[in-house]
């Protein structure tokens, strides 16, 4: 008995080492494993109807997706897709955004067991495209379904690799009751007016005027201000950096100087506020204790759950001379892309096309506030006073900005540095010039 076990383990060792030596050249090894696991699933799903469809025109098979959207959202897509193609079994795998997702995706790719559909986002786009791992969708029918503004944002090196049906819109979430109490009326037209409004809110008793999100990502007030200052006036800015005409420092230093002077040094945003976990900050806003925070449509569901009666709306951030106003966000959801290695490209394309149908779009909007931006589709949010203006001025006009979408190299490192430097300006008084120069260092690093 013991020898038996030992023998089995020995064999496992040999085959393991032998198989692992092959794995790089021998793609089918990984595929074999994948098929095995999927059959395992089917047999586990005793009641499910997985009979291979014999109908000739219909698609059948298995489609695997790795996403970071909740199971509720994914189920919305899959239900609709299955109503069109009942013979396709869709396997949705979830991984938490963003880092755990990337870990899992990389592991699957590097071991030749990648799913058919994956998310192609700012954080992994460069590597995926450089590695020729994505199917080029530029000439496929599904690319034509995308609205012009979606297409513009998803375009990468003049090609389309991922499909998006909408996205998020954000900026400043403003508590309108407090806004009126502070005697404020119209939306601010210039940056100066916005800062004055914050100071007016500061005078209210027990109210925090403004909390900047310095804890994570690029969801800070610097982002829309940057968009309003440069993109609104000079849309070719990124090309000038690529040509070497300008540097990131040229663009970012003035922005950092403005926010450091008006937001951090003036005491609006304090170290104490930086020490709040972001969900606590959002709670406080939802409870009406905060005048404005940086946020977007992905916060709607949370605010609704915490305090459905909150009277608030999204405002854009104007530039200094008031010539342009920008919002946060992008039209890059869900950014699903087909792996070049997929053997189910036809099914995958059909799945992507099904995302443009009203059923899927509605499910997105109801589940996560992922706003549909497809020609001919009327978003349920267009009637919503919270973001109606933002939709017209921001999303539809294309006046929304997320820097990751524009960065072309070392995106993740740029993002991390951005977050770090915004914190450094607030907490250690690091100078805007140094912070801005870091972008160029990273961009030019090999």
């Amino acid at each position, binding site marked *: 008995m013991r020898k038996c076990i030992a023998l089995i383990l020995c064999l496992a060792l040999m085959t393991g080492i032998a198989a692992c030596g*092959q794995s790089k050249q021998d793609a089918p090894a*990984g595929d074999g*494993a994948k098929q095995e696991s999927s059959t395992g699933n089917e047999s586990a799903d005793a009641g499910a109807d997985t009979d291979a469809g014999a109908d000739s025109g219909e698609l059948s098979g298995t489609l695997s997706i790795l996403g970071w959207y909740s199971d509720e959202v994914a189920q919305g897509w899959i239900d609709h897709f299955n109503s069109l193609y009942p013979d396709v079994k869709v396997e*949705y795998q979830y991984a938490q955004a963003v880092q755990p997702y990337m870990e899992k995706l990389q592991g699957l790719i590097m071991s030749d067991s990648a799913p058919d559909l994956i998310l192609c986002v700012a954080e992994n786009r460069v590597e995926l495209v450089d590695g020729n791992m994505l199917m080029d969708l530029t000439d496929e029918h599904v690319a034509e379904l995308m609205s012009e503004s979606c297409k513009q944002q998803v375009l990468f090196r003049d090609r389309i690799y991922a499909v998006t049906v909408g996205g998020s819109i954000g900026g400043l979430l403003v508590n309108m009751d407090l806004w009126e109490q502070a005697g404020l009326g119209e939306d601010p037209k210039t940056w100066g007016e916005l800062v004055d409004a914050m100071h007016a809110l500061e005078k209210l008793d027990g109210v925090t005027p403004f909390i900047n999100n310095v804890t994570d990502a690029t969801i800070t007030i610097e982002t829309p201000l940057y968009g309003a200052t440069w993109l609104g006036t000079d849309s070719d800015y990124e090309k000038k950096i690529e040509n070497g005409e300008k540097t990131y420092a040229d663009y970012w230093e003035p922005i950092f100087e403005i926010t450091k002077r008006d937001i951090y040094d003036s005491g609006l945003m304090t170290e104490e506020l930086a020490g709040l976990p972001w969900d606590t900050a959002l709670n406080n806003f939802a409870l009406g204790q905060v005048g404005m925070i940086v946020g977007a449509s992905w916060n709607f569901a949370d605010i609704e759950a915490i*305090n459905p009666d909150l009277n608030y709306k999204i405002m854009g951030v104007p530039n200094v001379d008031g010539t342009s106003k920008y919002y946060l966000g992008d039209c890059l959801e869900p950014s699903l892309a087909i792996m070049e290695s997929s053997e189910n490209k036809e099914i995958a394309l059909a799945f992507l096309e099904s995302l443009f149908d009203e059923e899927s779009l509605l499910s997105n909007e109801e589940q996560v506030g992922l706003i549909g931006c497809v020609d001919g589709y009327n978003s349920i949010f267009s009637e919503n006073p919270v973001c109606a203006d933002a939709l017209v001025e921001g999303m539809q006009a294309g006046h929304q900005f997320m820097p990751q979408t524009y960065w072309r190299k070392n995106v993740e490192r740029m993002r991390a540095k951005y977050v770090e430097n915004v914190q450094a300006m607030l907490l250690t008084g690091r100078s805007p010039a140094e912070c801005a120069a870091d972008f160029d260092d990273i961009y030019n690093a090999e």
Partner: protein
Amino acid sequence: MKRKKKSVLMDLIMLPLCAIVAYPFIYVLMGAFKSRGEFAVNPYGWPQSATIQNFLKAFEGVSFIRILWNNIFITALSVLAVTIISAMAAYAVVYNNCKVNRGIRIYLLLGFFIPFQATLLPLYQLYSSMGLMDKLYGIILLHAGSISLPFFMFYGSIQGLPREYAEAAWMDGCSVPGTFFRIIFPLTRPVMITQVIFTFFATWNDYLAPSLFLTSRDKGVLILEVTRSVSRNSVDWGRSFAVVTITLILPFIFFLAAQKYLISGMAAGGVKG
């Protein structure tokens, strides 16, 4: 042995400390029964209107029993495998103390120093080529391979046992395996219990390996469900804490059951310095 007098003083000093240490648990447990709105207003206090919605929401669309079973299956088999395998290895190294085995001892202890995260990518490739992806026993094998700590503990314990026990057994004609299973293994009980507790909690709470190597939701473990409520831009603490509460029930029972043996086993077995 005469019993010492009980002193209330120690109780008075220790109980507040216990309260502080216990509070984060109570915070999690209470949070599990609070709605989103209440959690925002009253995160630290007693729930005003308790709700079980969080629990229902957490296991919507997936069989809770099945995930719990996966967790128990992985943990039980891992603990069993780790205990037996590492004790056997320690026995062999102690009693067949040749040059090769001294080398093997050091080899097995290298596992202490390996940062698991650095080996993720190679492990992925290994798992994929061996067909271990999305298999519960894949996770068990991984745990069964991480035996450095248990091996280290058993080695110390078996080495501390008087040789006479084993020699007496050989005299009586006991075989090598017989000596191990009948004499040595039971004698390691104090260390075994400690080791079992360690391995139990390490495997029960292991997040990284299941998150990477188990792909389908119904093959997942409880701790993976915790992360489903932490999305990119929002956190539903109530739902998250509800799952955490469930993950804590079994370890709690297990610990209460094992605690007695942990202390008494150690004391009875005696620790040779």
